[in-house]
């Protein structure tokens, strides 16, 4: 990782910046008010910003997600390319689902659908490779790998409501 410099700006906030591999300086200015500024420095005059982009809390989240999730999909794309015929899908467990509160082992997902749950995203945190003792809950987003038909069955299983 590049060296990130932190600079306190009295009365304004904090600035973080670093130099990218190709030699451009990028920075983020955190205002005390919660506003963010994305700073792209000028190559000819490295002390000045060539472009300043204002981001509110919502924009910041969107941008961070775009930058962060592209990594995830890049990685997933690589997996997909490696194994032909394999698909990846995100399946949400709705509240009141038949598997809400059941341990992963007891649902026998793998046996019944042929698809494997490789990760669960709960409240923004990711649980990679959940074991058979992992208890599913409503609102969980499962990341599953399998054949397209297997994933179709998984949707049916997880989304079927209790009773």
């Amino acid at each position, binding site marked *: 990782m590049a060296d990130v410099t932190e600079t306190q*700006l009295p009365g304004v906030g904090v600035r973080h910046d670093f130099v990218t591999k190709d030699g451009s300086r990028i920075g983020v200015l955190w205002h005390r008010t919660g506003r963010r500024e994305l700073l792209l420095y000028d190559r000819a005059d490295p002390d000045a910003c060539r472009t300043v982009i204002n981001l509110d809390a919502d924009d910041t989240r969107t941008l961070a997600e775009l930058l962060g999730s592209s990594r995830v999909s890049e990685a997933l794309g690589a997996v997909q390319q490696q194994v032909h015929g394999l698909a990846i899908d995100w399946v949400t467990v709705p509240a009141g689902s038949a598997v809400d509160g059941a341990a992963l082992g007891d649902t026998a997902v793998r046996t019944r659908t042929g698809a494997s749950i490789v990760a669960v995203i709960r409240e923004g945190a990711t649980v990679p490779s959940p074991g058979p003792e992992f208890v599913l809950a409503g609102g969980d987003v499962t990341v599953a790998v399998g054949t397209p038909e297997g994933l179709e069955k998984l949707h049916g299983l997880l989304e079927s409501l209790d009773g």
Partner: protein
Amino acid sequence: MTLLAAASDEVAVAFLELGAVILGLALVARLSTRLGISPIPAYLVAGLAFGEGGVARIEVTEDFVELGSEIGVILLLLTLGLEYSAEELRGGLRRGVPAGALDFGVNFVPGVVAAFILGWDGKSALLLGGVTYISSSGVISKLLSDLQRLGNRETPTILSILVIEDLVMALYLPLIGVILAGSDLPEGVIAVAAAVAVVALILTAALRYGNVLSRALFSRSDEVVLLSLLGVTLVVAGLAQQVQVSAAVGAFLVGIAVSGPLQERAAALIGPLRDLFAATFFLFFSFQIDPRDLLPVAGATAALALVTGSTKLLTGWWGARRAGIGTPGRIRAGTALVARGEFSIVIAGLGGAAGVDAALAPLAAAYVLLMAVAGPVLTRYADLIGRSRTA
């Protein structure tokens, strides 16, 4: 019943006058925003035009305007104190001292020297030194934000110089307050020493135990925060005035003591109130100046502006160079610091009651008129200057 009717007549006139004045201020503020300059010089011009010896004289309810302008000074100083947290002030002290010392040396001294050349007394000289020394943190921080320069690498240098000026004010204002109160030498020295000791004590307490005050003032309700902060500030300001340390200093120290999450909110709540009363203050200040008094000081003002504009440029240049900033950045830092504004007027206003040289107020007004306009214009074109130099 008749009493009420008579009173309501008076009230009606007062409202009409006050409304007209505030609408006038709104108009000049709108005009200056359109031109992209600070409204402070515009308020001063409005005051000159409609005050003593101006094109028209408005007889406003003087008592109200005078009290309003006093509150304006207090709120200006309160927000100056609120601008930086105790942590930032300590950080500024660690890093900014060399540039801050140069800043003080080359910008305070020209004011003092100019006063002596003009044949003024010592008190007036100390005040004029303060007028030429202090940059306008209000104008400058707005300017940096408008020009999208907050992320620039020379900006920390500019801000740390402003932080040091802030701290210097904490010592300068009480000192000048005592000196202006004027006593003979032995007593005077004791009073000065006492003032310094009191301020040092309060400043230390504010930096160390400010969170206690902040916790006491804290509330989820905005109006509770606003009223308690305003109340505490006015009480402390009143107490400070009573012990001969000016009211402004008391307000400033309250601002510094307020810290943590309250600081941000307090600044946002006080902001609109300060804008209103500060406008009243600038207006009242220049109300009392006869525009005909500006002419005799015009030459001195121009010379002083030229000298102290260059010395601020030097300060920013040198500070930025120490921070490893290139030539264009040094020019941006130097030109940004040129702007003088609200606090120069506050300092000149302190002399009002203390019998200092009569030319101080017109000179300070003319000086701020020049610098509050010239500073922003200069720094806007700083990059052009920088490029032509390096090209």
